[in-house]
């Protein structure tokens, strides 16, 4: 058979974000030999823009890097500023940051698995996943006033608070999601046709996961635990207990199961945070000038480790500010996952790394 090339894009075939994939099939015309990516369609030069804004203005910009991780960016940025400023935020604020973050994680994971169901043409299952997610969308709308960008963080703490009524509302919604999720997990564990379709697809072996430095559920599904909440705890994660979900198969199924079980862990973290939420202030009054110095900070976003580097020269604007998002580390793994797989599985495999182009390109 003559050599042929299959070009997909500029829209990501799973998530409708712009990336070009140049996929070379094997001689059989059915399986994949190699894949190359062309990015840059939504590169906004944000690392340059932030040098022209002051530290307070940059908080707003970090919220706009991405939608699904829009809480982790300001959260991690604030931690870097607070380290440079030698600020210890109130304990209550640290708990509230965790509550906002775990809420976002649940919604993000449910969305990704819902997209998997969509790609599998299991639309009833997809509907169940999105309905389960809708309870968390209601939580976000009621508590933070927005279904996507929570705008929860400020330098020195948070700008929202919870009372007993709001906590009761969140618990009520969480119970609905938990019931729905138990039924969904049961389907994923017992539906043999579903399992057969995605087990053994897009495998990332443990050794490659380690060497490529992949992060988040992609790493954990290949048996690599670099969950920042566990390995380098921040905020109040060291005071809360949770299980890091890992699997050994490294395939599309394992990545979905990691996300599903992590939702239970996130809801457990939320329960613990509600029950031990201390009284006190939610934010400190902070000056807009950050002392000279440099700092790094990390958090565990829904897609994995997010890192910020910040350098201040003592003025109101940063001298250098850089961040690396989880998807950035996971793209190269696609080359391993796709090789030898069927072309009709491309979308399933792309979706399984839960890619964020907006994040990657900044």
């Amino acid at each position: 058979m003559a050599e042929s090339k299959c070009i997909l894009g500029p829209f990501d075939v799973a998530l409708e974000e712009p990336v070009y994939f140049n996929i070379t099939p094997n001689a059989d015309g059915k399986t994949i030999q190699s894949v190359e990516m062309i990015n840059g369609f939504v590169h906004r030069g944000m690392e340059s823009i932030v040098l022209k804004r002051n530290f307070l203005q940059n908080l707003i910009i970090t919220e706009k890097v991405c939608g699904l991780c829009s809480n982790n960016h300001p959260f991690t940025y604030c931690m870097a500023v607070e380290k440079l400023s030698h600020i210890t935020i109130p304990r209550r604020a640290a708990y509230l940051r965790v509550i906002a973050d775990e809420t976002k994680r649940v919604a993000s994971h449910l969305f990704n698995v819902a997209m998997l169901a969509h790609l599998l043409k299991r639309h009833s299952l997809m509907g169940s996943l999105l309905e389960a997610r809708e309870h968390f969308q209601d939580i976000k709308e009621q508590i933070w006033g927005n279904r996507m960008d929570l705008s929860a963080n400020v330098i020195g703490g948070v700008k929202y608070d919870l009372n007993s009524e709001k906590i009761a509302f969140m618990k009520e919604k969480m119970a609905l999601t938990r019931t729905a999720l138990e039924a969904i997990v049961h389907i994923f564990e017992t539906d043999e046709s579903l399992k057969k379709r995605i087990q053994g697809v897009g495998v990332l072996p443990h050794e490659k996961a380690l060497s490529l430095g992949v992060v988040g559920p992609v790493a954990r599904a290949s048996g690599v635990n670099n969950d920042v909440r566990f390995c380098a705890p921040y905020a109040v994660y060291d005071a809360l207990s949770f299980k890091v979900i890992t699997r050994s198969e490294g395939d599309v199924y394992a990545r979905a199961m990691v996300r599903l079980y992590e939702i239970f862990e996130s809801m457990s973290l939320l329960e613990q945070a509600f029950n031990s939420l201390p009284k006190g202030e939610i934010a400190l009054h902070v000056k807009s000038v950050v002392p000279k110095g440099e700092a790094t900070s990390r958090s565990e976003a829904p897609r994995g480790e997010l890192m910020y580097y910040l350098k201040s020269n003592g003025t109101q604007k940063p001298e250098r500010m850089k961040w690396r998002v989880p998807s950035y580390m996971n793209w190269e793994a696609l080359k391993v996952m796709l090789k030898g797989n069927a072309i009709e599985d491309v979308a399933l495999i792309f979706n399984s790394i839960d890619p964020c182009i907006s994040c990657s390109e900044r």
Partner: protein
Amino acid sequence: MKHLQSNLTHLANTLGIPTSFEISNDALWASIEDTNALEEFAKGLQRMHARVCMITCARVDKGHDILYHFDIKGVLFNLKLHLKTPHLPSITPLFESANWAERELSELYGIALESHPNPSKLFIDESIKEAIYEAYVPLSSAMNGEVSRHLWEKVKMAQGENNG
């Protein structure tokens, strides 16, 4: 972290690299002067199962500062290297996790990578030269009246350079 500080000090001493490792803001920090020492030091970090989390590049007065951010068993180690000329030995042959970070700094700052397995661009079309963002004036600057004098000085300076 102190245990890692001790191990890294031992590694640097063994390799004869003059540096010190300081703990600041929940991370370990060090800087090395000799670009040639990078590869040997990186091999030592590889043996310690380090992972490249990120690489930051910044233009400074005389050259570039490169800051490698490694994770070693949950501890963040930041290693600074000053480049006098825009040439950098790639550590991607040792750390696949450095692949995209090195390509990005090469693309945005015009730094030539030595021994990178795939030094192609990540974000900008291949037909556009490296460090294009530094050479061109963005619309936001061009339309900002406050910076017009500074802008034209930059343009005139560039013309002067082009005219020799």
